[in-house]
């Protein structure tokens, strides 16, 4: 107890400040993805804990971390004990996407991207009879332009300020009011397209503001209690459209627009009431229930179909011919079917649960849950639309208000056979009713057991197993072909495909956790988990999804003031999916829909995690803490054509294994602290981080100007958003002062 007393000597405040120096290759966005690590002077954290103001009646607590840095955060708590409390929080979080992004586009106003006139005049092909640019000429022009392109700031900053007030008007009662304001500002890489084969990556402007309000009250006593809450969230996007020039065209033409326009996320709002209550009943039984109706709204004005002025507009009394339409009849509707969506969704969550220990060794709980996601948004018919500001699609479209209703019934019956040790049987049923999806109703039954053994104070064993069986008896693959599928010019979904979230599925899931502490000196823990999904009825689509993981941990405490640990985790994932390459009929060829064009892809992921560490005194006045950790992931995608390439009509020529991708994140931290007495503790801390990444998907775009080999005339004009590896040394000398 005396030693313990030294540990718990309470202070009124603390502060840690010092100087920091960084070394190494640290230009990668990964290094400062969500943080700011400036060199020089820093204030790591501080706290002031005035918890005994005015005769122990009032308290005030103020703490901060990363002060004056771009990831700073502060928390102020003050109030009167047992009566009221104010809490104010301020938090900044940066999010750096890449440090390598470049673009020759200018942004004269938010969300509007233009190509400088001189450059555009070079990139736009000269009018006939001058010869058209060759692919190589265009590439040279672009490369020259990109050499002088501006470096982009592709990062966000999220600032959240919130205030919470809680008040206790009487014993058993609470009132609460909370308000938060969240602002997100910045740019992130974003893909746009103008025609099939032209990807033009741009910095998407982000300027979001979200206001949230929550107020509620609660009553609680020995017999039970209830909670009433209302919450509201208002989202506002201050840059609602993205407009950009076509660098290769300055006059609109059908199939070749001079600019494109995209509708960014619309403003929306959500409101929710929540009523929850619980009653303690005889026989150690508690009845709990909650009802939470919610509303989501969105009524941003629709944009016109296109900005392309070369696309003919239909007369207002135009009668659209039946599908497929002759090319000569194609024109864009003169008006929209509505000025906005009048988007309305209602949700209703209802939960009822009875938990009982009427017989203390036989715990039992029964629960019922219903969640309705009703989409009452308008379903509008668009007689036609313009594909990528390029041309009229020739297809009518109707938006479908997707909705669903999920019902769950659960039973959990246990038997306690020793102190803190039980075995339990569980059963769960789920019914999912969906609107406008391939499968309108699915049932899933789950049975399983749980086993917990903790009768000995040095041994803990927890195990569980569940088997689930989800049916998909009435799957209709055509459900999506109109209005959002390929329409009359395509083939629609292959009928034997089953989408993974709707497909029949057998799931086995098992988990085991073991903890042993045979003495205060040693400890050992291990865990194993697996989830195995078998989509046996899915001839196409995802067929298997199997993963395993296991962990070992070892702790060693040779002395009260010293502890060592070692951890290892391995995760293995395997997925198998099947597809068929299909070509619809054209003017010159019949449709090709042969099983000889089937292909299969297998994905394998392997992730290892290692950590070892030391924490404790190395001398009477020296505390040393250190650890090393490594997270290493390797991903493989293997793809194989299943057909015979010698048979006529064989299409699958691009089935190939993708290059393996991998990443490794090492972290070494060593900290020496020298408590000098009177609250002063100098500290020396060294951190080393190393991140390595191999990823063909990113490495091939660092040139940010690639002619896509899949199409002769296609172009990928990226911003070059690479996230390379880094090696960073961080040495900090600081002083901790507790007062």
């Amino acid at each position, binding site marked *: 107890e005396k030693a313990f007393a030294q540990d718990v000597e309470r202070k009124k405040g603390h502060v840690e400040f010092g100087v920091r120096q960084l070394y190494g290759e640290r230009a990668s966005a990964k290094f400062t993805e969500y943080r700011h690590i400036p060199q020089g002077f820093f204030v790591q954290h501080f706290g002031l804990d005035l918890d005994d103001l005015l005769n122990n009646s009032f308290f005030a607590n103020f703490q901060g971390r990363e002060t004056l840095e771009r990831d700073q955060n502060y928390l102020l708590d003050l109030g009167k004990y047992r009566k009221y409390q104010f809490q104010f929080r301020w938090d900044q979080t940066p999010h750096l996407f890449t440090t390598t992004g470049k673009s020759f586009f200018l942004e004269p106003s938010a969300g509007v991207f233009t190509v400088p006139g001189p450059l555009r005049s070079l990139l736009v092909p000269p009018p006939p009879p001058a010869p058209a640019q060759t692919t190589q000429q265009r590439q040279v022009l672009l490369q020259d332009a990109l050499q002088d392109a501006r470096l982009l700031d592709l990062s966000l900053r999220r600032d959240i300020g919130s205030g919470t007030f809680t008040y206790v008007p009487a014993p058993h009662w609470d009132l609460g009011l909370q308000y938060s304001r969240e602002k997100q500002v910045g740019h992130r890489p974003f893909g746009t397209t103008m025609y099939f084969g032209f990807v033009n990556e741009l910095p998407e402007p982000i300027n979001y503001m979200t206001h949230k309000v929550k107020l509620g009250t609660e009553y609680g006593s020995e017999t039970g209690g209830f909670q009433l809450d209302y919450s509201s969230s208002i989202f506002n996007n201050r840059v609602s459209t993205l407009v950009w020039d076509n660098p290769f065209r300055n006059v609109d033409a059908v199939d070749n627009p001079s600019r494109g326009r995209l509708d960014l996320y619309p403003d929306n709002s959500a409101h929710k009431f929540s009523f929850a209550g619980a009653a303690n009943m005889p026989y150690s039984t508690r009845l709990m229930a909650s009802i939470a109706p919610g509303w989501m709204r969105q009524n941003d004005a629709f944009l016109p179909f296109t900005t392309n002025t070369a696309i003919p507009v239909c007369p207002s009394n135009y009668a659209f011919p039946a599908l497929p339409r002759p090319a000569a009849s194609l024109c864009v509707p003169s008006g929209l079917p509505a000025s906005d969506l009048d988007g309305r969704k209602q949700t209703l969550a209802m939960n009822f649960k009875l938990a009982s220990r009427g017989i203390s060794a036989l715990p039992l709980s029964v629960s019922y849950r219903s969640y309705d996601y009703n989409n009452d948004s308008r379903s509008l018919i668009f007689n036609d639309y313009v594909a990528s500001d390029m041309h009229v699609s020739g297809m009518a479209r109707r938006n479908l208000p997707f909705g669903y209703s999920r019902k769950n019934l659960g039973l959990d019956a246990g038997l306690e056979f020793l102190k803190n040790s039980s075995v339990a049987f569980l059963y769960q049923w789920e019914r999912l009713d969906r609107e406008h999806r391939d499968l309108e109703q699915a049932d899933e039954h789950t049975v399983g057991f749980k086993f917990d053994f903790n009768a000995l104070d040095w041994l803990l064993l927890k195990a569980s197993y569940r088997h689930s069986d989800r049916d998909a008896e009435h799957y209709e693959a055509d459900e999506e072909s109109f209005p959002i599928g390929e329409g009359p010019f395509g083939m629609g979904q292959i009928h034997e495909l089953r989408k993974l979230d709707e497909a029949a599925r057998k799931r086995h899931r098992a988990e085991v956790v073991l903890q042993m502490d045979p003495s205060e000196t040693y400890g050992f823990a291990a865990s194993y988990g697996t989830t195995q999904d078998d989509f046996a009825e899915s001839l196409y689509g995802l067929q298997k999804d199997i993963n395993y993981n296991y962990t070992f941990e070892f702790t060693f405490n040779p002395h009260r003031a010293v502890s060592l640990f070692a951890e290892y985790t391995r995760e293995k994932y395997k997925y198998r999916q099947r597809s068929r*390459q299909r070509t619809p009929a054209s003017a010159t060829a019949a449709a090709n829909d042969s099983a000889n064009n089937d292909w299969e892809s297998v994905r394998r992921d392997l992730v290892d995690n290692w950590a070892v560490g030391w924490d404790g005194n190395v001398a009477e006045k020296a505390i040393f803490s250190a650890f090393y950790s490594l997270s290493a992931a390797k991903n493989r995608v293997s793809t194989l054509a299943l057909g015979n390439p010698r048979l006529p009509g064989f299409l699958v020529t691009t089935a190939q294994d993708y290059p393996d991708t991998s990443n490794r994140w090492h972290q070494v931290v060593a900290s020496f602290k020298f408590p000098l007495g009177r609250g002063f503790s100098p500290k020396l801390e060294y951190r080393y981080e190393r991140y390595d990444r191999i990823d063909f998907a990113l490495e091939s775009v660092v040139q940010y100007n690639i002619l896509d080999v899949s199409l002769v005339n296609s172009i990928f004009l990226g911003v070059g958003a690479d996230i390379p590896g880094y090696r960073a040394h961080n040495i900090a000398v600081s002083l901790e002062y507790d007062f």
Partner: protein
Amino acid sequence: LSTGSAAGAAQASQAQDESQYVGSEACKTCHEPSFQSWKDTAMGKAFLDHPQSPLERRGCESCHGPGRAHVEGGGGSATIIGFGKTSGQPAQELNARCLQCHEKGMRLFWKGSTHESRGLTCVTCHQVMQPNVPPLRFAEPLTGNRQFVKQTQMEVCFQCHKLRRAQVQRSSHMPFREGKITCSNCHNPHGTPNPALLKESTVNENCYQCHAERRGPFLWEHPPVMENCTNCHEAHGSSRPQLLKASMPRLCNQCHNESRHPTTPQLATTRFAFNRGCTNCHSMIHGSNHPSGVRFQR
């Protein structure tokens, strides 16, 4: 079982008898350091300086039960309710001590919850007698409540959820290890009526707390997106960008087998596979409100 129940019954019997209580001053005689530590906690101040019920006025004995037998027996763990690993009390009896006052708020749905039914106790995760120290390995959001048995809340959860510790260290992650969010931003470990102990009714409602722009409703919606974000994303961490469960185009190939390019395996050097894969063009994949946005390109 019999030992724990018998002790519990004895304690319950004694708890009714006021003469069995000795007062906190008596506890302090032998447990001075613990008392000094506890009296400065929020609970200590509430009980000692601002008690609101007879139970709270009992100070130490509010939680540890009547102490007369313990005092007269010269100490020992058999005569007092202890909360350490060697406690003779079953989990539900230990929890009952805390729930005397804490059955409100986030604990409304504790009984029958996942953690309650697996025999966890409040002290599996919390300790009230000892202040905590700043973490070295994982940072966490500033909080007024640091009464955890580990340095951070995440490490408390990692005691059993060991896979999550590995996942938050992956290359693609939310700012868990940077201390900007933590487990309880999304989950309420004390029990909720929602799946996976989520604070909100569904996965998506949880995600919309920070990603309100994805909420819609949209004119053109992508059904698996609106139904469950985890159809495509692994929230706890992934080795692929954007927390994706699989790289594109294979992620999309799982469901899209119409004709033309979604059915082609695609070479690694094409725009279907590099950079952001399918979302190089279908960038409004979470939903579009543009009349021409049916393919999520506008």
